[in-house]
C-alpha cells in the first residue's frame, strides 16, 4: 500500500503545531487582560502582574504568549513552571534576574512551602530593585493563596491583579472554530456544537480532539462534518 501525499506529510510531522500566542487565544471576557499583556512592555508602572483563574482558564497559554511577545519586542524572557520545578530546590531561581521578563506559572504550589515562599519573596525584591518584570499565575487571588510569609503576601497584593474568567460553552465553540481556522480548517457550527455536546467540555481536551480531527481530516482529505467526526472519534 502506498501512502498518499497528505498521509506522508502527516507522518513526517509536517502538520502545523499550535504555538501559544495571543492570536490563537480566545479572550472571551478576558479582553482587558489580553490587551494589557499584548502591550506589556508599555506599562511602565505595572511590571508585576498576577493572573489568577481556574484550571484551563488560559493561564499557561498567556504566559507562553508573553514569552513569544518578549522576543518580538527585543526582550529576554524565561518561563518557569512550578509544576515541574517545585520538586527541586529554589536554586532554580538563581540568575533569573538576568532576564527582562520572568514568567512564573502556578505560584499557588509554593504556598505553605517556607523555602519556596522565601525564594519568591527574595526574587520579587531582586527584580524590583533592578526594575525587571515578573508575571505570575495562580489558581486563586493573592489573599486566598494561603501564603504564610506576610511579606510575600503583601507584595503579591501590590501586583496588577487580573482574574481570568473561564469560557462559556458558546465561547468554547467559538474558540474551537478560531483554533481550527488558524490551522486552515473550516469547522462548521454544527461540528463545534456536536463536540461540546458529546466530548469533554474541558478546553484543553477539546483542543486535543481538534488535533486528532486535524490529523484525520488531512490524512483522509475530508472536510469536517458531524458524520466524519463521529467516525474518527468512534462515537
Amino acid at each position, binding site marked *: 500500500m502506498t501512502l498518499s501525499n497528505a498521509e506522508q506529510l502527516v507522518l513526517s510531522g509536517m502538520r502545523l*503545531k499550535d*504555538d*501559544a500566542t495571543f492570536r490563537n487565544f480566545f479572550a472571551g471576557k478576558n*479582553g*482587558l487582560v489580553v*490587551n*494589557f499583556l499584548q502591550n506589556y512592555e508599555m*506599562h511602565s*508602572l*505595572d511590571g508585576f502582574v498576577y493572573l489568577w483563574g481556574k484550571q484551563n482558564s488560559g493561564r*499557561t497559554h498567556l*504566559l*507562553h504568549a508573553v*514569552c513569544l511577545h518578549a*522576543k518580538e519586542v527585543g526582550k*529576554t*524572557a*524565561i*518561563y*518557569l*513552571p512550578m509544576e*515541574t520545578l517545585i520538586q*527541586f*530546590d529554589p*536554586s*532554580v*531561581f*538563581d*540568575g*533569573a534576574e*538576568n*532576564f527582562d521578563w520572568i*514568567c512564573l506559572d502556578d505560584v499557588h504550589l509554593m504556598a505553605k512551602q517556607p523555602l519556596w515562599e522565601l525564594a519568591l519573596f*527574595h526574587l520579587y*525584591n*531582586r527584580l524590583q*530593585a533592578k526594575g525587571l518584570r515578573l508575571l505570575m499565575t495562580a489558581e486563586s*487571588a*493573592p*489573599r*486566598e493563596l494561603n501564603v504564610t510569609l*506576610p*511579606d510575600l*503576601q*503583601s*507584595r503579591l*497584593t*501590590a*501586583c*496588577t*491583579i*487580573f*482574574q481570568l474568567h473561564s469560557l462559556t460553552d458558546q465561547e468554547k465553540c467559538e474558540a474551537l472554530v478560531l483554533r481550527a481556522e488558524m490551522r486552515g480548517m473550516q469547522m462548521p457550527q454544527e461540528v463545534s456544537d456536536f463536540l461540546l455536546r458529546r466530548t469533554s467540555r474541558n478546553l484543553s481536551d477539546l483542543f486535543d480532539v481538534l488535533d486528532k480531527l486535524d490529523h484525520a481530516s488531512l490524512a483522509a482529505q475530508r472536510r469536517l462534518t458531524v458524520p466524519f467526526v463521529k467516525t474518527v472519534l468512534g462515537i
Partner: protein
Amino acid sequence: MSLMIWEQCLDLLKDELTVQQFNTWIFPLYSKEQDDILVLQAPNHFICDWIYQHFYSRIKEVVLQISNGKFVNVIIEVGTRRDGEGLPTNITSHATSMPHSSNHSTSKEIPYFQSNLNSTFTFDNFVEGKSNQLALAAAKQVGLEPGGINNPLLIYGGVGLGKTHLMHAVGNMILRQNPHAKVLYLHSERFVAEMVKALQTNRMNDFKMFYRQVDALLIDDIQFFAGKDRSQEEFFHTFNALLEGKQQIILTCDRYPKEINGLEERLKSRFGWGLTVAVEPPELETRVAILMSKAEQTRIEIPYEVAFFIGKRIRSNVRELEGALKRIVANANFTGQPVTMDFVKESLKDLLTLQDKLVTIENIIKTVAEYYKIKVSDIMSQRRSRSVARPRQMAMALAKELTNHSLPEIGEAFGGKDHTTVLHACRKIKEMIETTIDIAEDYKNLLRILTT
C-alpha cells in the same frame, strides 16, 4: 554569526519540543562562539544540568547540522547574555554590590559609587498620617543630620506600611544635601548573599572594606538575619565600625527587634542605641490620602468619594491599595472611561467580593471568641458577665465596621439580639477605645487579624 546559527537552531527545536520545554529550557539560553565550539549560557547550574540530561545530544546534532559542521562541539555553562556580550556585570560601578575584582582589596576608596536608591521614594510623596507621623519626623531628622544622635534609626512595623519608602526618602535627602555621599541601600538577604560569596571567594577584606566606607548604610528587613549567625557576626562588626565613624545606619524590621527569635542579644541591644520608631497601619483618612497621592503620581483623576470608597474597603496595607489602583488604571486605559464610583466597583469587583467573602459576621464572632479565649456559644448567649459581654460588644462593633450588614441583621446574627443592643455595643466600644488602652489595643489587633 553564532547568534544567527543559534536563532535557526531555535526555530528547529521549537517545532520539536513542547511550548513549555522550549520556553523553560531552550529559549532562555544565550549563545557565543569559541572557535569551533558553540557555548550556550544558562542562568544557573540547575538549568545547565537539566539541559545536559534532557536535550544536550539533540542540541548538539542540530547545531552541527545548521552550522554545516562549523561547530563540532557545544558547551552549556552558567552565564548570562551580559557576560557573553561583555556588558558590565562588574558591579563596581553600581552600589548594589561590592567590588568584583580582588585588586580592590588594598584600595582605600570605593572607585566609583552610584547610589542604588529608588529616587521616586521621597518625603514629598510620603503621605503623613497619625499612624506614621513619628517615624516620618524621625526620618526627616536623620536626613537633615545623618550620623547624629538618631543613629541607628530603626523603623519597624507590619508589611506594606511604608518603611522602605521612608528609608529611601532619608537616603535621597542625604544625597540631595551631599551628592557625593555614598548611600547604600540593600535588602538583608543581599548582605547575606554577598558575605557568603566573599567567604567562598576568599574576599572578606573587600567585603568589610566596601560596607565600612559608605556614608549611610540602609538595610531592609533585618528580621531575615535571624538564625544566620555568621552574617550577624559580620554585620555586628560593620555596625560598630559605622557607628564609630559616625556613618548613618538605617534599618527596617517587621517587628520590634527584641521580639526576633534567632537574633543575637548584642545586636538587639545595639539596635536600640539610636532611635526606634514604629509605623502603624494607616487609618481611613490616611489611606484615602495615599490613594489620592498615588493616583496623582499615576496621572489619573480619582474623585475623593471614590478614593474614600476604596480606602474603606481595602484596609490591610498600602501595597494592596496600590494593587487596586493599578487595576483601576489598567481598566481606565483599556476602556477610556472616567473613574467613577460605578467604574471602580466594576473594576474591583473580584477584589471587593473577595473581601466581603472573607469578612463575615460568623468569621468575626469566631475570631473574637478565639482572641478572648471564650466559646462562640458564649458570644451568642444572653449572659451579661463582663468576660462575655465585652468580647460580644467588641464583635458587634467590628461587624458594624467591617461588613455592610444592617444593625438588625447584626443583632440577629448574634443570637437574636435587638438592634439597639448592637448600637449600644458600638457606642460603648468607640468610647472605650478613646479611654482604655487595652480595649484600643484589642480593637486594633482584631482589626488587623480580620483584614490581613
